[in-house]
């Protein structure tokens, strides 16, 4: 609700009145902050420097804690709000940046609606097998995607013309995935995880 309210309140003003270049740099910077954080955590998890991610385990732990009647914790509530808010904000920022060009807002919104329906549908149909997917790798992939979008928009805002246009997102993603793989490998070699 907070994300929708924020996008509805600021979106039209940003799209109509703001300098598009500046808007793209701002949105790109935020996406870079979010994406690089995901990427850093993903690399640390893959290298064994951090516990592997499991949203289901976190959910079970949180539920157990609530059932035990633990006192209310505003910091925990804020952290939970932050998690959901940031996920939604990332989507909102991408849609705003894509829809910033005249004539592209409607396709961007239509794409978002289709993606929302797909995500809800896939979640409903496949929630059990989805739990078995390698979550750490999925989150690393999200980090790669957000970092690629952030780099793409920041550079466009600074007047760069990407070779092959929007397809640049693909080679940027490949490049950042390679950087993440190399960083994981370096960290593993620096401190190998004991066997067994």
């Amino acid at each position: 609700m907070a994300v929708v309210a924020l996008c509805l309140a600021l979106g039209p003003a940003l799209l109509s009145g703001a300098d598009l270049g500046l808007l793209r740099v701002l949105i790109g910077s935020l996406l870079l902050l979010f994406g690089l954080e995901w990427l850093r955590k993903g690399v640390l998890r893959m290298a064994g420097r951090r516990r592997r991610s499991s949203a289901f385990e976190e959910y079970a732990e949180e539920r157990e804690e609530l059932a035990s009647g633990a006192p209310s914790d505003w910091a925990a509530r804020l952290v939970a709000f932050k998690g959901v808010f940031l996920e939604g904000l990332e989507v909102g920022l991408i849609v705003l940046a894509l829809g910033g060009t005249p004539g592209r807002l409607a396709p961007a919104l239509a794409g978002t609606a289709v993606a929302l329906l797909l995500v809800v549908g896939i979640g409903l149909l496949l929630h059990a097998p989805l739990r078995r997917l390698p979550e750490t790798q999925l989150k690393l992939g999200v980090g790669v995607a957000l970092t690629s979008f952030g780099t793409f928009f920041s550079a466009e805002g600074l007047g760069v013309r990407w070779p092959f246009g929007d397809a640049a997102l693909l080679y940027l993603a490949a490049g950042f995935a390679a950087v993440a793989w190399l960083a994981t490998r370096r960290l593993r070699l620096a401190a190998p995880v004991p066997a067994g």
Partner: protein
Amino acid sequence: MRALLGSLRSLLFGETWSLPLGVAGALCAALLLRSALPQGLWGHAGGFLIAALVAAALTLSLRLGR
């Protein structure tokens, strides 16, 4: 209060200082390069320079670990 401030900092900047500083540094360096390089060269190569700066910010953050 301390926990609340910590949560707010984490909300804006994540778990580390090195990443937000790295992103800021990368964008400042990109601005400097844009003004230093010929416009045509920046238009074609600027994106790759920014991507390299972003990758350097990630590598540095992993190396510093905070």
